[in-house]
């Protein structure tokens, strides 16, 4: 899973039915100081996250299908948690 920050939202009317009822968020993965940042991507929100929240993003399709309980959901990235804190002891 990826540690990321929600930086925005996407509004879409015409979309795959599996996406109905979920927010689509733009997330920016966090990186260690001195390392290059990763690209932003879109993630479906299953944790009621808001813009500015640090979140846990799962990037795997079958996990997303398990969460939505839709067998053929074409979803890869899903926000599965809002992080309270992180402790990094070594880098």
């Amino acid at each position, binding site marked *: 899973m990826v540690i990321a920050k929600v930086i925005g939202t996407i509004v879409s009317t015409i979309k795959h039915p599996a996406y109905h009822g979920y927010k689509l968020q733009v997330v920016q993965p966090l990186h260690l100081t001195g390392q290059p940042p990763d690209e932003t991507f879109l993630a479906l929100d299953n944790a009621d996250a808001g813009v500015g929240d640090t979140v846990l993003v799962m990037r795997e399709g079958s996990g997303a299908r398990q969460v939505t309980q839709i067998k*053929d959901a074409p979803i890869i990235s899903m926000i599965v948690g809002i992080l309270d804190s992180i402790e990094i002891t070594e880098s």
Partner: protein
Amino acid sequence: MLLGKIVGTAVATIKTPELTGVKLLVVQPLDENQKPVGTLKVAADTTQAGVGDIVFMVRAREAALSLPDEKFVPVDLAAIGIVDTINIDQSIKGFELSPGYSKFN
């Protein structure tokens, strides 16, 4: 999932039989500020999107799942939604993590 702008369509006569009936879109992947990222890609269309539309797309195995009938189509990118608006909060900062304890609001 990622954003892209449709810049054209692609037509192929000789192709894998499973691709018959699949509309192929030429897309330019975009970042959150609608700036181009990387090279042009071809995506299968599932939402009747047209040239000029900004869409969001899904990669890998899940692209084939988005097509209506056949679930074993050889595609690895599909446009699955047309974007109405993108709202980005440019004021958000702090994408760096440092060793130690970090607490988030």
